[in-house]
């Protein structure tokens, strides 16, 4: 039985698990902040996958570079997302995602 961490399958399985938990969280939870966190989890899952495959084909570092950029974008996204949540909170003084239904009328 070869040791656990030498095959990319384990990382793919882990990333899939993490990604589904993130997606699940995003769809189920009503709290906008938790939803944002779940998005972060999903992003991290994909980063893990990128790095794992880069490890599988080590000829160039594109996987890691790409992961690096994903982190940069995630940071920007989190900042703006939180700003929007603040604006939304000020408008509807609640973070419950169901209240954001002005467009519905």
């Amino acid at each position, binding site marked *: 039985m070869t*040791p*656990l*961490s030498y*095959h*990319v*399958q*384990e990382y*793919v*399985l882990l*990333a*899939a*698990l*993490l990604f*589904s*938990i993130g*997606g699940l*969280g995003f*769809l*189920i*939870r*009503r709290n906008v*902040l*938790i939803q*944002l*966190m779940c998005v*972060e*989890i999903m992003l*991290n899952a994909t*980063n*893990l996958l990128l*790095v794992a495959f880069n490890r*599988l084909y*080590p000829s160039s*570092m594109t996987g*890691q*570079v790409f*992961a*690096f*950029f994903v*982190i*940069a*974008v*995630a*940071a*920007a996204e*989190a*900042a*703006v997302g*939180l*700003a929007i949540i*603040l*604006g939304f*909170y*000020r*408008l509807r*003084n609640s*973070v419950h995602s*169901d209240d954001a239904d*002005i467009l519905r*009328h």
Partner: protein
Amino acid sequence: MTIGSVYFFLCAIACIAGALVTVVARNPIRGALGLLLTIVGIAGMYLKLHAQFLAAVQVIVYAGAVVILFVFVLMLLGADAMERPTGNRSPVARIAGGIGIAAIVLFTAYRAIQVYSRATNGHFPSLSEDFGSVKSVGKQLYSEALAPFELSTALLIVSVIGAIAVARTGHKRTALSPNNLTSAHRFFGGPVEPRDAAQPITKDSTL
């Protein structure tokens, strides 16, 4: 069971536990901490995969900045950030949806594993020693990926400005009341009030 597999096992457990805590936690602060745990677990994974630079960036940027930002906003919102006891939505539908999605994702992962195990038996090849180091990533970063690198700086600046603009308290924007929404009546000159009060609205008008 080598040290590596134990280390891998620990990090995996951390990540999954963190994720579960984030999703299930009633209190968002506990959720943020769950997220922190996940991120640190992922950083550990990076180390295992010889991505030292990325692990550092992960810990500094993600754990250091993003999660702290979350906690900062949570503190700003205070008690209102708490989860409102909803419950009007039947839990059965949500759980069923969740399980469904999880099943699909896991099934895809399993099939992918089958293929890859078949083709390249997923074994990690040996590496040159400075594989994941800052030098090699930096070299790649500044040679092939120079354009995206510069663009990401622009992206970050824009997002900062955007965040400030959106979250500015300054003037109080009036909420969009439903009745002065743009509609055909506005196009035809203000809200439609009966022009001739004397004129009884003919009941047999059509459409």
